[in-house]
């Protein structure tokens, strides 16, 4: 199903890559943000189905932004993007409520798998 996605990363390069991956797969990129504060603001304004969030960013980092977003909406679906070697940060993010994580450099197939998995409806009991 087509998702509304908010991409958060301070690097234009990364944002473009993700955008292309998503658009090609039929999703809609409703916005892009370049730092944590921007991310939270755009999240509230645009109400996306899913957020991809870079961890290390100037100003407010991805984990703080994640926390703020989860506080607004505990059902928020945020996927962290991380470079190799940032395991403890990823763990911190997972504990703070991130639904999954993807590692840079991005592999298209991997990215799409993760996206579709986290947006599967919660178990119907």
């Amino acid at each position, binding site marked *: 199903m087509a998702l509304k996605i908010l991409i958060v990363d301070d690097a234009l390069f990364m944002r473009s890559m993700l955008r292309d991956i998503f658009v090609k797969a039929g999703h809609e990129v409703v916005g892009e943000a370049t730092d944590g504060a921007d991310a939270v603001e755009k999240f509230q304004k645009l109400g996306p189905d899913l957020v991809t969030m870079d961890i290390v960013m100037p100003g407010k980092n991805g984990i703080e932004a994640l926390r703020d977003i989860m506080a607004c909406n505990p059902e928020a679906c945020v996927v962290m993007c991380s470079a190799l070697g940032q*395991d403890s940060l990823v763990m911190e*993010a997972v504990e703070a*409520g991130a639904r*999954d994580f993807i590692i840079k450099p991005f592999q298209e197939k991997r990215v799409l798998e993760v996206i579709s*998995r986290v947006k599967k409806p919660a178990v119907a009991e």
Partner: protein
Amino acid sequence: MDMSKYRDMFFSETREHLAQMNQLLIALEGNPTNREAIDALFRHAHSIKGMAGSMEFLQTQELAHHLEELIDEFRKSGTATTAAIDRLLAGSDMLENLLQDIGADQPERDITAFLEETCNLGLADTASRHDADSGLDMGKFLQIFLSDGREHLHAMSQLFLNLEENQHSEEIIRELFRHAHSIKGMAASMGFQQTADLAHYMEDQIDRYRQGTAPQEGELDRLLAGVDLLTGLLDDIDEGRPERNIGPFVNYQPQRPTPKPAPVEPLPDSALVAEPAPRLEPMAAEPPAEEKAGNDSDSESNGDILDISVTLSSEAVAPAARTMLILKDLGVLGRILSSKPTREQIATGGATRHLDVRLETKIAPNFVQERLEEMSDIAEVRVERSQEKTSRFMRRRDDLQRTVRVRTELLDQFINLTGELITNRNMLQSAWKDERWEDLQVGLDRLYRHISNLHHDVLQLRMMPLASITGPLPRIIRDLARKQDKTIALEMEGTEVELDRAILEELSDPLMHMVRNAVDHGIAKAGTIKIRAWREKDLVLIEIQDDGRGIDPAALRRKAVDKGLLTESQARALPERDVLQLICHPGFSTAVQVTELSGRGVGMDVVKSAVENLGGSLVIRSTLGQGTSFLLKLPLSIAIIKVLLVECAGHQLGIPLTRVQRALDVSRKDINTSGKQLVLTYADEILPLVSLRKALQLPAAAPQDTVPVVITEARGRRIALVVDRLVGQKETFVKSLEFPINRLPGISGATVMGDGNIIFIIDPPAILEERRGQAGRTAAGVQHEPA
């Protein structure tokens, strides 16, 4: 009790105490070490506390208690500090304020701020100081907290049910309030915030009833759900998990009156009892966020237990985070009972590529498997149903084991006995030293008596009332009946009868099962279930009776034939008593009872074997159209039993008396043959003769003129077990056996005689069962007459 007439007395006395306290405090300022003044001060605070408690002025009581503690500090240290005196004076003012609130018929003001302020001032009571250094203390208190908490919850459950019948009972409402209040207090002092908050919430709701609002439709259901949630919270605490979030429960606003459950045809057992009733559906509609999932509905166990094993691929990145994600995901699918590594270990530890989880869930195993396999970096997933039973009564079992409520008189008896034993020992020592043999003898006789008493008293410790396992029944029956749209009344009698705890543990599930049967199959639309317990000599009898449909013996006979268990003629010949026992035959019932209460495949066969393992027996009686009764006969204690000693090929063996219907010497004249089988005619019955020697694979004996037999039940019928000699009866303490001896079928324990000999205790049905496999054309163990 009408407390209003004590009101005036309460006010005047409390004010007296307060006046005295003020004077004493001022005196102490001048003379801080005045012991008498400190003691008197304490007494005044204590008295106020007591009166306030009886009148149920809880804030006043709590404040008085707080002041009492502050004063206790003086008693311990010997001197009254100025700061503390100030505080006490302030406390005394606060008490006066509370009195004014009460006098004006207003609710007592909240004293929490006052208490906190005392802590902030560093006058904190010793309790908080203990917290800092006692990991150990808290551990001890934890057990007490859990078992007390659970007791309160049981009581509340029952009280809510009573309240349903009797909505205006002030007494019930007051008791409910007290229980909630206690739980709140304990939880708060242990630092369990969610539990304390929820208890506080319940307290508020109950307080509305105290003020006179009548309970609305559906409110009591909700409060019962609150009790369930509290039970779940206690379970979380017990298992070392973080407390589940009470937010959804507390914030839930009922939008419409709760609809009655639609009448349902026999529920498939997969539609678990613990499914949320309509009142809870709105909660389940929220997509469960991670830790909230195990929260909705019930504290009754939820479906099956799965053993899950996940291995990450070797290239997995951030494996710890991945493992944490898996754990969280599983937490959404059900309730995590245990995991290796644990959540803390994953959060703090190094990389781990393997995760084992035990999960309680209603969701099918292959669904869980699929979900896990969809995740990134997974190499292998294995999901299996666990062998463990999911009964919450297993937890109750642990409760039964960890702390025991003991009557204080029993403890006094122990102290006395210890004293006597010490005296006795001294006496024996000096008699021995002085070589006064007669006195030594007297001393030994006394010792014998003391030990006997001690033994008896220790056994008493193990006794608990039946009520400890029948407690949850009213609630369970109510829920079941509502689900099936039946009206079922429950009467219980004699639940104060006491039984050995080990027996109670084992009985818990079977009891549940029989009650469930009565509800599901016994009663069609409306009826009564009666549970009665009483003692006869050294047995405890428990009867579960319903006035429902009854069991149709003809149908049972047909079924037995259909299933190939009996031939037509055997089925016809089977006496009615034995026909009813057919339902206890494994595999007899077609409905595989997957009840959430006891895991898989609990049928009457499991019930029967559980009862028999305890050394008891199960009698089933039924009249078509009138009802069915299950009667359990149980020994008082499994630790000490009476056995019949018999001799067999030079060995002495014990047979539990509960298994022995009759023991007698029969003359060879009464023995006949029926086909190839030797039979005994006894009391109009023809019983097959079975040789114990042969069953134990011992050489056959030469036949005698009189044949000692023990009439017992084996293989579903009465038989005459032939032994060499009947020795006598004995009351013995049974020692259970260890591996590998305990693997021998038919040997249920051993006992040590006075002369040091060991006597094995055999279980006739099991011993003879063993022989069945070796039966050729002749019935096993048959004794043939020499030609």
